[in-house]
Structure formats: C-alpha cells, structure tokens
C-alpha cells in the first residue's frame, strides 16, 4: 500500500477578479504577488506536493508568501481558484475540492485537525477547555457524556494541561496552555492529517520548546501526518523531514530539511538561511 496520504496538484488562489496576465507578471522574479494589470493578489500559484503517512512537511516563507493560504485551502477555510487535492484515507480516496459542504465539514471534523496561531480561531472562548474538546468529540459522533468527559480528560493530560483546569474557560489560560488545548482539541478525533499554522509564534522560547516536543511525541505515537507552517527555521529544523520554501505565492524550492538549511539552492532561501544563522 502506498504511504501517500495527500497529493496536491496545481493548487492556486487568486484574490480579486484576476486576468490572463496575473500569474505571468507576479512571483519571486517580479518581487510581488500583486498583478500590475488588474490588482488581484496571487496568494498561491501552482502548488504541488505529496505528503506521506506519519510525515511532517514544513512550509516556510515570509508573511504573504502563501504558506497559510495553502493550508487554509486544504482545510476548507478558503476555496482554491484552481487545482486538485486528493486525500488517501485507507482504501478510500477523496477529491477534496469536489466534496459538498456537508462532506467537507465531516472531513474537517473527523479526519483533519487544525491548530491556528491565534487560539481565538481554534477555540470557543464561550465554553470551558473540556467543553471545547467535547464539542469536537460530539461532531465526530461520540454521544455518551461520561465517555466524552473521560476522553477530554485523557487528551488534556496528554497535552499536559492540568485536569483541575478542565472546567475553566481557556481565556483565563496562558498562551502556551491555550495552544495545548487547541492541540488536544485537534487530536480529539485522532485525525490522520494535522495542520499547524505558526503554532509557536509569539510564545516564550521555553514554551515553544515544550510545544514542539509535544508535537513530535504525538507524531511518533499516533503516526499523524502533519503540515507545519512557520517562518521560523528553528521550528522546521526540529520538526520537518522535508520542507517547501514559498515566496510571493510560489514554491521556489523544496527538499530535505537539512539540505534546505545547509545547501539552499534558490537566492531567496540562501538569504533566508544566512540571515537566520
């Protein structure tokens, strides 16, 4: 059986009405992703990659490079202008962008997980930490109260959130703990595919290290495939086996992470690596 879990081909997203010249006059060589003719923003253009089971793929690039846009489309937070993504789920195969709204919701709730940079996007601050996890478990068809509570407790323990805080509102938590609750929530359905969008950005260094450690432990334990979006070379060095480098909506370089860091080929990647060391 192939270990491929996700295949992305020609994925593109243009914000604005677009014109035939948009993709020809934007990109790294034009140093912009804004079309000079129609003003549309080429957020992502012709993104191609494969992801294998249990693999962590890093996507690195500066703000506006299209890394979050790419992940948002795959998680159905945004719709692509063109392109295909195929999700291989056991014996089943799903063309993600042909799914109807209900099927997409089901995919998000049961088979995918997302951890956002901003906990406000991933957590419901009207309810408790345990309630947040219960919400996701309910959406994945778990109905029994005691079972939901037991599983929520288990997930919070696994992500090192004290059980004493299970019934407290996450808005009273520190940034690092909010990220842990988000991770617990995302893992509630044991998804085979997890998206992590700048999950350690803005956290203290010691908290960052603990979150990265947790992510890697989970990947080892559950064999979860992950796409990690970050602008931090240290994060991909520790987490990702392979990395895509994005700029102005394009993948300008891809390779093994240690190769990207030690033998970058593209001028932009060379500058990025040189400025980080």
């Amino acid at each position, binding site marked *: 059986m192939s*270990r491929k879990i996700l295949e992305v081909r020609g994925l593109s997203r243009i914000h604005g009405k677009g014109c035939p010249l948009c993709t020809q006059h934007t990109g790294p060589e034009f140093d912009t992703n804004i079309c000079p003719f129609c003003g549309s923003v080429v957020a992502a253009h012709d993104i191609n990659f*494969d992801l*294998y089971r249990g*693999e962590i793929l890093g996507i690195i690039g500066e703000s506006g490079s299209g890394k979050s846009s790419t992940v948002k489309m795959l998680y159905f937070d945004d719709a692509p202008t063109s392109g295909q993504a195929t999700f291989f789920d056991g014996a089943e195969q799903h063309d993600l962008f042909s799914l109807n709204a209900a099927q997409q919701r089901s995919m998000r709730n049961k088979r995918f997980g997302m951890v956002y940079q901003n906990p406000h996007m991933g957590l419901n601050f009207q309810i408790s930490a345990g309630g947040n996890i219960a919400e996701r478990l309910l959406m994945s068809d778990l109905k029994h109260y005691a079972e939901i509570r037991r599983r929520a407790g288990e997930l919070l323990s696994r992500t090192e959130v004290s059980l004493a805080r299970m019934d407290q509102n996450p808005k009273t938590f520190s940034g690092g703990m909010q990220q842990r609750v988000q991770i617990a929530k995302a893992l509630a359905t044991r998804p085979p595919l997890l998206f992590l969008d700048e999950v350690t950005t803005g956290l203290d260094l010691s908290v960052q*290290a*603990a979150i*990265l*450690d947790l992510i*890697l432990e989970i990947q*080892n334990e559950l064999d979860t495939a992950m796409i990690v979006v970050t602008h931090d070379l240290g994060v991909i*060095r*520790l987490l990702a*086996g*392979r990395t895509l480098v994005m700029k102005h909506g394009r993948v300008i370089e*891809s*390779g*093994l992470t*240690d*190769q990207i860091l*030690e*033998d970058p*080929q*593209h*001028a932009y990647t*060379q*500058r990025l690596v*040189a400025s980080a060391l």
Partner: protein
Amino acid sequence: MTQAILTIEDYAKTFHLHERNKDIPSTSGVNLSVYPGRLTALIGPTGAGKSSVLKGIYRTYLPSSGRILFRTKAGNIIDLAKACEHQILELRKQEIGFVTQFLYCLPRKSAIDVVAEPLFARGVDSHEARGRAEKLLAQLAVPSHLWNVPPATFSGGEKQRVNLARGLIAQPRLLLLDEPTASLDPATTERVIKHIQSLKETGIAMLAIFHHPDLVRRLADEVVELSPPIAVTELSKD
C-alpha cells in the same frame, strides 16, 4: 572481497552563491568504494571536501555531479545523488546512519530517549529501545546520573558521546562518521575505537573522517586522500 555497499563515481560539489555571484568548489573527482565490515577513511587537509563527501552521500548536500551508488538490503542499486526525497528519508531510517559533530535534539528529551529515537522510529518496543540505549551509553562511559537528563546542559564530550550512541544504536548497514572522537578524552576515544572495531565485526560498512592520523592507522582498511579543489570562480555579471 565482497561487493561494495557504496560506490562513488566522480562526485563533485560546487556551491553557487547567488548574492555574490560566485561558484565555490568544495570537492571534485571523488571516487571510492565502501565494503561491508570494513572502514574507509577520508583524509586530506582542511577544505579538501571530506565532510562534503559525507554530506553528499546523506543528501544534506545536493551533489553537483557524479554518481553515489548504494546497494540496499534488498539488493537494489540506488543512485543517492538522484533518489527522491522520500526514498532518502526511508534509507536514513533503515540503512544509512550519520554521526555528525553536532547534536540537534529537542530541548526536553532525556539522553536515553535522544539515543533511543532511531529505534522508536523503526517501531522497536520502547522498553527494549531504552534498554539498548542504556547499554550503549554505559559502553561509551556516559555517567548514569545523566541518562535521564536532557543533553542541553552536558559538556562537549558528553554531548558527543550521546550523539555517537544515537548514530550507532540502530546499527545501519552504512555508517558515516564525521570526526566522531573530536572532543573526547583519550580514555573515551579508546572506548570508541573498540566499539568501531566491534561494529566492523558485525559487518557494518563505514566511511569516516578522523581528526587524528593514529585513528586512521588503527581503524582504516582503505584510505582515500582528497586534495583541496581549485580556487573560487568569479562569475561574470552577464
């Protein structure tokens, strides 16, 4: 002699620096073979490209030209210079190990878990993996009170031994060693020499760079000497 596990034909590596529009040759014209149960030593002055050869094999560097032919456990020949990334990742997990001079690991992980990690990745039972890690750390004289502590606070020599143990534990078919004894005291170096000798007896093929000529004399079955490549090429702006 048995068949080579690794054969390098005319390997060259040149770095192109876009910002300065320069080509910097690292090494060229490298030809060598590595055999099961034998150790090939790379020697040559600083800047001759010894590490560049090891990194080219491990694909940390993208080779500029040449072939790096690896015979897999299944008997297939794979050109590592051109193999796809997933194939390289799988070979790193199962067949090719690299002990570099630096230890990169997660800050909270204990020394035992850092060492056992390659076995976890292969799906070895965690109890067994940790047991093997303890045995190896003891063999390399890492004090037992450090085993459950993250290596971040260790001395250079202790980190190097943890790094070495991590590289050796999974017993890859091909082991690349980049100055594995560089920051070790004479007594520990002696332990490492004994360990490398015992690895040879188990049939592991090794390609190594050693800091000290005495180690080459004692451990190498084959010696390949590299010369520094020609000077940096300034490219025209056109």
